[in-house]
């Protein structure tokens, strides 16, 4: 004795291999569709900037070439003064540059500011008292 379900499923059992084929085919085509389309659209997006990337690349090549052209002139001086200037040396260099600039334009070097004269003790005390 069998239930109607058993009879029906048994009757069509032979379709199993073809159904497996249908299932595999569907999974292969449908589940690969989504990632593929994302990849394709990403690829297309990048491709739309192809001209921009080429121009940017050419600009960088130009910058590198110019940099390579200028560097030999400046690098010996840099190597002669040492790798990094100390703050005191740097300050002295800035002062020297300033002096040379003033000489060139014919202006007088302004006198360095005088230190403020010390205030009398009495004044200081008064201040203290008034506060």
């Amino acid at each position, binding site marked *: 004795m*069998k*239930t*109607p*379900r058993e009879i029906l499923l048994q009757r069509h059992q032979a*379709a199993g291999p073809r159904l497996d084929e249908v*299932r595999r085919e*569907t*999974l292969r085509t*449908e589940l690969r569709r989504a990632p593929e389309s994302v990849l394709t659209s990403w690829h297309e997006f990048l491709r739309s900037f192809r001209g921009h990337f080429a121009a940017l690349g050419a600009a960088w090549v130009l910058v590198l070439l110019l940099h390579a052209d200028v560097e030999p002139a400046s690098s010996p001086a840099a190597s002669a003064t040492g790798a990094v200037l100390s703050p005191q040396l740097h300050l002295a260099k800035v002062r020297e540059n300033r002096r040379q600039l003033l000489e060139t334009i014919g202006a007088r070097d302004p006198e360095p500011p005088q230190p403020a004269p010390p205030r009398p003790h009495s004044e200081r005390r008064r201040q203290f008292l008034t506060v």
Partner: protein
Amino acid sequence: MLVVAEREQLPVQQARAGEPEAWDTLFKRYQLPLYVYIFELVRDEQTSLDIVQEVFIAAVRHLGSLRDDHKFGSWLFGIAHQKCIQQWRKSQREEQLEPADTADEFEAGPDELLIRREQEAAFMKLLDQLPLPQRSALLLHFVEDFSLEEIAQITGTPPGTVKSRIHYAKRSLRRLLEETK
């Protein structure tokens, strides 16, 4: 009282995440019952296979429209039913619906009918002779043990009509089994 089978744990959530193993499990589970249902309605092997594939494709593409994961089976059969209707329309073989009835035949359950080996051919012959709406309702009841409400949802007909269809189909079947005892 309706007898609703205990719900299986199906990897619908994983399928929503696009896991191929989950889809494989789901399709393996339903491929034969779907094929049986479709074949018994359209009566053509290649058309049935094509419809099964169309159902699978629609399921992958439109799983987002399924609200309740527990209704995956009835949702899948709903798609299959729609595809079969399209097929019927194509072949212009629409059939008349029978009048509604308030019979309680549905409540007996799909396994209540037991068929002996010598009655199997007669059972299949009777199934062939049933009008399409009756056959469709009876198959959904037999093959997947769907509830009255589920069958109504799948076939897009009121539950009363489904009940009536199953009643008439089972009555014919019972009569046949009595005759061939």
